[in-house]
């Protein structure tokens, strides 16, 4: 089966400066890759979870895929057709939709819900004989009363605004839905509602979805495959359950371990990962995670790891991937407990 969406070696560069700064200082500035060599594929009907911390580039990646951010290098193919020009992107956007992060902010405060829901169709040039009726059908699809067509965005609760966001994304009958943090800011009792709705509509309408999030607890239940991002690069991809059960990249393992557990009987002695996510402007040499990695070796500081294909349709970008029950995993769990000091140096003295 050919993938619905294929992204190959995609990079996004910033830092060349704008028109004015180039006028004032014509020397070329170094570019910084905020997305660097990302390769991923999305099968029809599949749900991919794109996970990373703030600053990892996950939102930028989603926007680049839809052509809202310009790629510096790489290739995007949608439905087996390469997407290169703005005309291609327009055609692709007609069959794909984005749910933006802040649902209330992404709805114009001056337009009524009915107008907002059918706006994508008008922009795409789809003939809509009766906008009100279309809007009502869309509202019914996401379980909102028809009377909402006359409401303004500020009259909705956070959960309702999300539902409108879903309805609006679906108005163009997309084959691909990109949802950027669809549950951020929602209460636990409501977030399930929005995700169940997306899952239900996916079953009925058969689109593929890419869900961008930092919430591991949620993505575990709604995605088929996971892609973990760190500093603009993918560090691990694989089937969701397998990645959670046996993460291969130390970063993935740390992320899963960092998640607080809602059970006081299972409090961990230590859940701290040291250090902070570095800036893309000062990307560490070698493997970008080595500054925080509990099992980093001297090699990790100088040599960037390549993507490695592992059994079970998984990829990992690490010199020393954690394999189930292997030496590295043991070393990882030994190194993870509370060593807030110079864990790095301790690791170096470890016999190789």
């Amino acid at each position, binding site marked *: 089966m050919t993938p619905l969406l294929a992204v190959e070696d995609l990079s996004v560069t910033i830092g060349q400066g704008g028109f004015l700064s180039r006028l004032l200082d014509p020397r070329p500035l170094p570019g910084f890759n905020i997305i660097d060599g990302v390769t991923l594929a999305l099968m029809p009907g599949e749900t991919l979870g794109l996970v990373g911390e703030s600053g990892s580039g996950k939102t930028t990646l989603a926007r680049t895929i839809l052509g809202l951010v310009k790629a510096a290098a790489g290739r995007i193919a949608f439905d087996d057709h390469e997407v290169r020009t703005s005309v291609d992107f327009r055609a692709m956007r007609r069959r794909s939709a984005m749910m933006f992060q802040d649902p209330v902010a992404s709805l114009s405060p001056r337009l009524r819900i009915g107008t907002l829901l059918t706006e994508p169709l008008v922009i795409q040039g789809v003939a809509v004989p009766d906008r009100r009726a279309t809007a009502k059908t869309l509202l019914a699809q996401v379980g909102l009363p028809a009377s909402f067509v006359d409401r303004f965005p500020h009259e909705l609760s956070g959960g309702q605004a999300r539902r409108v966001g879903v309805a609006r994304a679906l108005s163009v009958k997309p084959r691909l839905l990109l949802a950027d943090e669809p549950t951020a800011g929602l*209460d636990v*009792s409501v977030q*399930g509602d929005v995700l169940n709705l997306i899952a239900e509509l996916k079953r009925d309408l058969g689109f593929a979805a890419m869900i961008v999030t930092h919430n591991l607890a*949620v993505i575990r239940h709604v995605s088929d495959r996971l892609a973990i991002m760190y500093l603009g690069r993918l560090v691990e991809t694989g089937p969701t359950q397998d990645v959670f059960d046996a993460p291969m990249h130390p970063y993935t393992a740390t*992320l899963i371990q960092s998640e607080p*557990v809602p059970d*006081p*009987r299972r409090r961990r002695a*230590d859940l701290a990962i040291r250090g902070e996510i570095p800036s893309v402007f000062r990307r560490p040499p070698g493997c970008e995670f080595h500054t925080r990695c509990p099992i980093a070796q001297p090699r990790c500081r100088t040599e960037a790891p390549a993507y490695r294909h592992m059994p079970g349709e998984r990829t990992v970008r690490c010199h020393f991937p954690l394999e189930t029950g292997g030496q590295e995993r043991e070393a990882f769990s030994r190194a993870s407990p509370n060593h*807030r000091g110079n864990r790095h140096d301790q690791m170096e003295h470890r016999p190789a």
Partner: protein
Amino acid sequence: MTGSLSAQNLSVRYETPQGAVNALRHVDIEASPGEVIGIVGESGCGKSTLVTALANLLPANARVEGSIVYNGTDLVGLDAHRQRMLRGDEIALVGQDPMTAFNPVLTIGDQLVDFQHRRRDLSRGQKKERIAAMLARVGIADAARRMASYPHELSGGMRQRVAIAAALLTDPGLLIADEPTTALDVTMEAQIIHLLRELRREFNGIIIVVSHHLGVIAELCDRVYVMYAGEVVEEGGVDAIFHDARHPYTQALLACDPARFHDRLERLPTIPGTLPSLLAPPAGCVYASRCDRAFAPCLTVLPPKVTVSTRHAARCHAVAA
């Protein structure tokens, strides 16, 4: 100085043009020195109103009834001057977004000196020494350089550490952390939880942690108050709340947390229905309209506080029956 905190029958009403919003109703809170108290609930449950009332920072349109006794002093009805003295000396608040807690045009060091303005016995140099020591204690390595930085030059996690240091510089007896990790990434959240745990070992005052995140509450607290629509619906030891919850709302809230389920769920659990309007709270139980165990008295009679065991109580007719 440390003392215990006790709020009895505390109610807060906001007077608005639309009518009085009953944001907090008959809330009882007890805390003794050395305890970490968790306050958990979803948006609109009144947890922020509660901590703002404890810190005496309610807006002018708020009407407070009941009592808040801290260390023998009733804070309700205290004059503005003495309230401010208490806040500076005894009660410290760490907010959700540390970016807004700091002045963007002053360096961290200058601001931390100002936080100690009540310590007239210390010179500026001594204050700076205290700051350096405190920053080291909250895990900031190069304190001297950080004191010369402006707030925007620090990352979110770092700013939250500085906010905690600022709160501790006043030697408070009561430290209130309102959603201390909500604005942070999971790895930074883990670091702040770790830091708060370490601090509590030396800190012998009361720590109150407010969060909507059940994981944060479970990792940090000794006792928990569960709030819904302006009321405390259940209170108890952290183990009792997470393993022996009695109130239907607490049970539903726990069941909704996807972090509790290891295997993939086809449908995520939710709580159907919506919060009641706080302009006219229901006569009976606040949770009745969403409760699957509701029966006749729930709609008309205020549920009693039922003691399940020592220090574990739930406000529910079904538990009483």
